[in-house]
């Protein structure tokens, strides 16, 4: 998977490249809009992360020109201003998602993975399975080690979300927005409490942990062997 990052802020650009590389992506970094535009037009990428506030040519124009050239690459844009106009403009110009600075790297990573997955043919799954935990999406039942686990509707959605992103760290803000549709930072530890309750249900009485706390980043659900 090859990703292009267009970002003029030196430090942010470096860290994005490092973070994405360490997450297993091949990453190119362009420090100016012109470089970014050139790379985007000539190389083939699976995803472009585009800062819209660039000193030479702004992100909108790069987006426009990619669109005009018929390049169908998913674009995630970064903006410093969280305004409706910016969001609408970006999405109209063909961007697929956006993040407002400052953002958490875990969130960026999660969104990048979601966008990259979007291209793949979606599998109509009827069940999910991680280790000995299985989720029946049709009957909306959870089982672990042959034992049936009673979950509330929201707990089921939360578990489904974590299982669909198995092995990926999900930041709290992303969980809040995807599971509860709460698109703002809450100053409470609502997500922690919800995770704690879910854990109690799917881990108590079992030998191994499935939900892992990744300090400073969020939560990840994965098979115990990978811990």
């Amino acid at each position, binding site marked *: 998977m090859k990703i292009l990052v267009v970002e003029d802020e030196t430090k942010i650009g470096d860290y994005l490249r490092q973070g994405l590389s360490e997450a297993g992506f091949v990453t190119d970094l362009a420090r100016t809009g012109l470089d970014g535009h050139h790379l985007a037009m000539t190389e083939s990428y699976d995803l472009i992360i585009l800062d819209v506030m660039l000193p030479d040519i702004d992100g909108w124009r790069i987006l426009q020109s990619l669109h005009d050239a018929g390049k169908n690459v998913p674009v995630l844009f970064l903006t410093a201003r969280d305004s*409706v*106009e910016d969001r609408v403009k970006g999405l109209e110009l063909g961007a697929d998602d956006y993040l407002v600075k400052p953002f958490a790297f875990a969130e960026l990573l999660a969104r990048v993975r979601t966008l990259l997955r979007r291209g793949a043919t979606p599998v109509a799954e009827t069940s999910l399975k991680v280790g000995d935990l299985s989720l029946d999406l049709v009957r909306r039942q959870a089982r672990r080690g042959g034992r049936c686990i009673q979950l509330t509707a*929201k707990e089921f959605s939360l578990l489904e979300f974590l299982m669909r992103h198995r092995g990926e760290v999900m930041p709290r803000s992303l969980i809040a927005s995807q599971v509860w549709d709460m698109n*703002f930072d809450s*100053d*409470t530890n*609502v997500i922690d409490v919800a995770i704690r309750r879910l854990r109690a249900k799917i881990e108590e009485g079992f030998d191994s942990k499935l939900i892992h706390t990744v*300090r*400073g980043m969020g939560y990840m659900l994965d098979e115990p062997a990978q811990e």
Partner: protein
Amino acid sequence: MNPAVRHPLSLTLRLTLLFAIAAMLAFAVFGWIIERSIKQHFFDEDVAELKAIASSVTKTLSTRGKLDVSTVLRQRFNDILVGHHSAVLYVTREDGSTVFASPGEHDLSAMGHNGMEPVAEGLLHVWQDAGHTYRVLTRRLEMPSPANERYTVSVAVAIDSHLRFLKTFHRTLWLMIASGIVLLGILGWVAVRRGLAPLRSIVAQIHRTSASELNTRLRPEAMPRELSDLAESFNGMLARIEEAFERLSNFSADIAHELRTPVTSLLTQSQVALSQSRGMEEYREILYSNIEEYERMAQMIGDMLLLAKTDNGQYELDRITVDLTSEVEDLFDYYEAWAEERGVSLSLTGEAVTEGDRAMLRRALSNLLSNAIRHCPAGEAVRVVLEQTSREAVIRVKNPGPPIPAEHIPRLFDRFHRVDASRHRSGDGAGLGLAIVKSIVDVHRGRIVASSTDKCTTFEVRLPSRSTSITEREVGRNNMA
């Protein structure tokens, strides 16, 4: 400024002009009446005199009888004229021959009686001759039989002196009127300037009011009634500006303070961490702890940006119909586990619908709800009561618990305001939660009120039901312009 817009005349000039025009009109009417009545008086006097003489002449001619002695007649006519200064008499027969013509300087015979068709009652006219002007009464006399004679009698008085007097009077009168108008104009100007002095003093006071002296106030009680209203409105405006200004400067100071604290702690922590070599785990701990601090700062920045945007009217509301009932239910879903862990139950009664930005309203409700849950003692319930009136959607969020001291209620929605100063950083954000609620309610043209009793703290939000999107947009445009 648009050059096409002409500056209106100054008040002083306007009032002075009005005053002068009024004076001019009054004087003109007054002068006209005086002149007319004097003329009339002279005329009446002349006519009375002429008639008296004419009557005497008529009498003399009718009693004349057969005495056709012209000397006697002349003597009688002369007698009549005695005592009538400057009166002239001229009598002719039907054939035009002169019976009598006053001798001397005034001679009416030059006028002649040809072409005149006088009647018995007499004909009044003015005749000019040799530098004199006369008022003349001409009568026709028919002597009954036996004499059966016809006479034409003209009696005249010279009115030169009257005319001279009138001319002089006219000139004097209008000269006086003209100077009167000028004088009154000047007086008017002085009076207006003096009358408008309080206005100038207000202007001078307003001029002196600078940003650093927003606490100065005009004194309405020391001003004329017409201006005290203005002064009071101005004071009101000044008070609002002062308050907003103070809040703003406090806000800036608070921002600096709120940012300095985490930056100091991050700096210290990182420097201490680097001061000696440590184990991997220890470094990791430090980074984790840093992330928490960064996240808090990021959230604070986001909150402040939102506040700045709503303050400037830059936030464009994405208006749709919002079912508050289902919004509250969603939020209950979200907060349920957290509330349960705190031993707090949630209840919702009533329903309401409004129009507004769903994400914003959700955020406001979320802040109110988390605030209520946080301050609700274990074992108690947070109640949300929705009510729909014809014009408003009312949302009440109630929680039992220790009352908020009355002195904090008005400042509850201030930025960075905390009821309990020591509660700083105990997990309730930067103290912007309620300020954000208020901003969101404000951009929706709603109102928010907090009240607190021993038993229950209530936040009441009233949102207008009807759409105000057009005015909203216009306001937004004006703010941007």
